[in-house]
C-alpha cells in the first residue's frame, strides 16, 4: 500500500468539513493510505499568489519540506486551489535562483521533487473505475448528476497535467462506475465566481446562477463537484442566487467523495450529508425507487 502525505487545506477544517471527512472515508475503503502532514500551514490560496509569488511559494514550501521528511510516495490534496499552489511552487522551484530565495525565507532545505496530485487523480490512477465498481454495494441507480470540476482542477494544463482542460472526464467516469446517470454538462469547467461573492455578490449570483440554471434545465437531480469553493457558492449561496435571479432552485450539490461513499455502503451520517445547505434527502430517497427508474428510462 502506498502512503501519501495528506494536505487537507484550511476549508477542510470548517466550511468543507464534509469533503475532508468523506475524502478520508473513500481513501480508506479504496486502500489509499493518508498520513496528515504534521503541523501543515495554509498555502495562502489566491490572496498569497495575487499579492506576491515569493510569499506564496514560501508558505507552500514549508509544507513541502515537512512532507519530504515523511518518506511518502507523494503529496495529495482534495482542494484544487491548494493543489494548484503546491504544484506551481514545486515547478517554479526548479529554477535555482527562485529555489534559493524561497529556502532563505523558509529557513530550511526544500527539495520540491515529490509528486503532487489531487485525491481525484490518485483514486482514479490507483483504482480504475471498473475496479471501483466492484466495491459498489449500493449503486447510485437512477440518480442523474452533472459533474462540475471547477476551473483549476485541470488548469493550467502544463501545471496540473491531469485530464482534459476543456472537457475533463474523470469525474464522469467515476460517477458512471458508481451507477449514476451522468449528463453531458457544458459548464464543467466554467467559473463559479470564486471568492468575489464577499465583495461583488452580483458576479457570483450571475456565474453560479448559470451553472444551476443549466443543471436544472438538463433535468439533473444533483450537481457533483470536487472543489470546496464551487460547492460553497452553489450550495450555501443558492438562496442568494435564487433571490437575485428570481429562480427557485433546490439543487443539492454533493462532493464526489460523498456520493462515492454512499455507493460503497457508507452511511449518510458518516458522510456528513447533513452539512449540505440544500437538503439532498429528496434526491437520495428517490434513488433506486421504481418511479425514479421509470423516469431514468
Amino acid at each position, binding site marked *: 500500500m502506498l502512503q501519501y502525505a495528506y494536505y487537507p487545506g484550511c476549508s477542510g477544517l470548517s466550511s468543507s468539513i464534509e469533503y475532508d471527512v468523506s475524502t478520508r472515508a473513500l481513501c480508506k475503503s479504496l486502500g489509499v493510505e493518508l498520513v496528515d502532514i504534521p503541523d501543515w500551514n495554509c498555502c495562502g490560496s489566491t490572496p*498569497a*499568489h495575487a499579492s506576491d509569488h515569493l510569499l506564496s511559494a514560501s508558505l507552500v514550501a514549508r509544507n513541502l519540506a515537512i512532507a519530504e521528511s515523511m518518506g511518502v510516495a507523494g503529496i495529495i490534496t482534495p482542494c484544487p486551489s491548494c493543489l494548484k499552489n503546491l504544484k506551481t511552487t514545486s515547478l517554479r522551484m526548479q529554477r535555482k535562483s527562485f529555489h534559493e530565495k524561497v529556502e532563505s525565507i523558509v529557513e530550511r532545505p526544500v527539495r520540491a521533487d515529490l509528486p503532487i496530485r489531487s485525491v481525484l487523480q490518485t483514486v482514479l490512477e490507483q483504482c480504475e473505475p471498473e475496479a471501483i465498481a466492484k466495491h459498489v454495494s449500493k449503486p447510485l441507480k437512477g440518480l442523474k448528476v452533472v459533474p462540475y470540476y471547477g*476551473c483549476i482542477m485541470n488548469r493550467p494544463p502544463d501545471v496540473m497535467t491531469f485530464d482534459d482542460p476543456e472537457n475533463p472526464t474523470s469525474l464522469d467516469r467515476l460517477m458512471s462506475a458508481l451507477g449514476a446517470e451522468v449528463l453531458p454538462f457544458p459548464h464543467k469547467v466554467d467559473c463559479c465566481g470564486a471568492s468575489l461573492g464577499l465583495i461583488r455578490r452580483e*458576479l457570483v449570483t450571475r456565474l453560479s446562477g448559470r451553472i444551476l440554471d443549466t443543471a436544472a434545465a438538463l433535468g439533473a437531480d444533483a450537481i457533483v463537484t470536487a472543489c470546496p469553493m464551487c460547492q460553497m457558492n452553489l450550495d450555501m449561496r443558492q438562496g442568494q442566487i435564487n433571490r437575485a435571479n428570481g429562480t427557485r432552485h433546490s439543487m443539492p450539490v454533493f462532493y464526489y467523495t460523498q456520493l462515492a461513499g454512499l455507493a460503497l455502503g457508507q452511511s449518510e451520517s458518516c458522510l456528513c450529508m447533513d452539512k449540505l445547505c440544500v437538503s439532498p434527502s429528496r434526491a437520495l430517497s428517490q434513488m433506486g425507487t421504481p418511479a425514479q427508474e421509470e423516469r431514468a428510462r
Partner: protein
Amino acid sequence: MPETSAKDGYNSTFLQQVQEGSEQNLNRCYQCGNCTAGCPLSFAYDIPVNRIMRMLQAGERHAVLSSKAIWLCASCETCTTRCPNEIDVARIMDVLRHMARREGLVAEPPVRHLWDAFLKSVEKYGRVFEAGMMANFVGRTGRFWTDADLAPVAIGKGKLGFRPHSIKHQNEVQRIFARFREQQ
C-alpha cells in the same frame, strides 16, 4: 470605460518589468482575443484582458495598473489555457496586481482588504480562521452587511468555527512573513 489612448505616454521600462516578473514574452500576443472571449468576468471588467495585453505592449503603465479588471480576475486560468501563443496570461494578471499594490493604485480596495485580512489570519494562526478573517474584513471596509444572511446558516451547519485552528509552530509561519518583508 476609461480613456486610455496613450495618455500616459510610452513607458519603456513597464513592459520589461512585467515580462521579467511574469517570465512571459508579451511580444507574442497577436491580439487574437481568445483570452477575452473565454474570460468569465469580461462583462464586469473596465478593460477587457486582450486590451490589457495590448496596452502593456504600448507601455501604458498607469492605465493598466489602475484598472479594475486586474482585481476582478478570478484566477480561473481560462485565458492561460486557451492562449495559442502559450502566454501565461493569469500569471501576468497576478504580476499586475503585485505592481498596483506596491504603487498604491488599487482600483478595487475591497478585494485587497479581503486578501489582506486572509493573509493576516494565516500570519497569526498559521491557518485561515474564517470568522476572524471576516471580522477583520468588516473592520477594514465597514461592510457590516457582507453575507450577514449566511452567518446563521454557516453557524447552524457547524461550518463557521468560533476558534482558530492554530498550528503548533505559528512562529515559523510568522518568520516566513517577517523574512519576506525584510527582503522587500
